[in-house]
């Protein structure tokens, strides 16, 4: 592509929208990526089929949509100790709007440590790892190379995205989703096979395991989804658990969820001091 120093791309789009996604033609139809919503989707396709269609432009199979739905359930924990859920609960106890509470929870999970914020890193790693594997690197080579790379902090503790988890080691959701994948008839492919080899090696050498993001991203890359598509589909991943925590705190007496007395905060700052006379 040649250098484009003109303003034409902005001029062309002033006051106009040109879309592949669809839209509303009043009195005619609502279109989703070529489908008529009322004729082709409502009552005929599932919500998750429609979600993936809207994100990717491709209507997934029913079984793929079932798989996505199951994978969303795996992040629907009603445990208000978890950071995103607690933010939903705090909005609930302060009598905030459920939309604000759930939105705050969803945004909280845009995190490097958990939730959809870690998706891109997980998907990019397994894509990189398979390329290295095809160059002849063993799973241990891949782990060591990754740990030494610019993508993670070098050190003894593994910080490969998708292969560590806060609070606990191991991840029960991997086994659950393996069952779902098998029951739906999915065949394991190269990214996921490598992911399990890395998982096994990591457990032997570093006492860490593949986590749910590692599993989901390897599976979906194998199924042809791009890093961006996976990240976008999962952007609201945690919302069901946040809903639960918001609802309970909101139903209870206002302000009674995890109240803090003054002494519940440990002050570690400067001792009380006089305002300087020479200030201003």
């Amino acid at each position, binding site marked *: *592509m040649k*250098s*484009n*120093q*003109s*303003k034409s*791309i*902005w001029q062309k789009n002033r*006051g*106009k*929208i*040109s*879309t*592949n996604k*669809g*839209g509303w*033609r*009043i009195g005619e139809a609502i*279109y989703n*990526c*070529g489908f008529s919503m009322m004729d082709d989707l409502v009552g005929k396709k599932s919500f998750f089929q429609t979600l993936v269609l809207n994100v990717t*432009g491709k209507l997934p199979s029913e079984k793929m949509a079932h798989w996505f739905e199951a994978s969303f359930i795996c992040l629907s924990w009603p445990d208000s100790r978890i950071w995103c859920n607690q933010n939903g609960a705090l909005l609930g106890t302060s009598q905030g*709007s459920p*939309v*604000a509470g759930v939105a705050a929870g969803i*945004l909280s999970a845009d995190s490097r440590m958990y939730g959809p914020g870690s998706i891109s890193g997980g998907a990019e790693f397994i894509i990189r790892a398979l390329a290295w594997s095809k160059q002849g690197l063993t799973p241990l080579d891949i782990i060591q190379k990754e740990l030494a790379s610019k993508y993670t902090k070098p050190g003894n503790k593994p910080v490969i995205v998708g292969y560590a988890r*806060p*609070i*606990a*080691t*191991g*991840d*029960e959701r*991997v*086994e659950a989703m393996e069952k779902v994948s098998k029951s739906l008839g999915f065949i394991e492919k190269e990214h996921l096979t490598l992911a*399990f080899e890395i*998982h*096994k090696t990591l*457990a032997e050498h570093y006492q860490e*395991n593949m986590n749910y993001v590692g599993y989901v991203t390897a599976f979906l890359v194998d199924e042809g989804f791009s890093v961006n598509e996976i990240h976008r589909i999962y952007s609201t991943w945690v919302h069901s658990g946040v809903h639960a925590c918001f609802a309970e705190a909101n139903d209870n007496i206002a302000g009674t969820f995890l*109240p*803090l*007395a*003054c*002494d*519940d*905060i*440990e*002050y*570690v*700052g*400067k*001792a*009380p*001091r*006089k*305002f*300087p006379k020479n*200030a*201003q």
Partner: protein
Amino acid sequence: MNSRKVNIESRNEQFSTKIKSRITLEIPSDDNEFLAQQTYTHGYNVLDLMDHCDPIDNLFLIFKGELPNAIEKKILTKLSIFLMNQGPRTIAARTGANAGVGRTDVNHILPIAIMGMSGNYGGSKEVENAMRFVHRNVDKDAANVAKQCLADKPDDVEGDWIIAPGFGTDFRGQSPFLLDVKDKFMQACPDNGYLAWCQKFINALPAEKNCGWRLASIVAGVLLDLGIPARVGAGLFQLLASPTAFAHGVSFADKPITEIPFLKDEDYEIKPI
């Protein structure tokens, strides 16, 4: 399958039993531990701050732990006034305006507008990334860093040519207003500081291609000169830029929905699949 089965075990990490704060001390009242008798910010009684400080002093104190000196106060005041006066074309103002005219609960207009300014193209993510880039390279020769960036990012893109976070073209030009703003900051910031390094870096970029300052590089240089780290810079940018974003947004909250263009069908092209 069995070899893949793992035990789920707690890491048994030692979590803090209390939230810590090095910013605020609240001394409880005698008869109700949930109510404060006195409140201090970095050691100063908030009642004294109310008598003796202006908002810029207090803002600097909150983030830096000390009151600003005259130069720091001058720089932060300029930055605050500049960012406070962003126009209605910003993504932040437009998201706020869509919320306002769409009758969104007015409580949500500001958070929506702040989310609207979080992007990596013109938003706080670009500021954060620019801060990280400048901080990482400030001890290196700016011209050499520019040479490497130009080699890594050839001008073969549509849209803006971004050669490093915060640096490149701005609508394929350079905003005369932003350049005037930058000059004001150059006068206020240290000669050998981060903003000065940004200028040296830009001096080595092709001016004939309008490759130079973007909003993010100016803000990044100034924030770093104030001693603000990148992890704080994004949010501080959002905080300082939020007044007009909210004001533009809420100004539509009592207006009819026809106040903001809703494109006609002929201007909304649904491409055939």
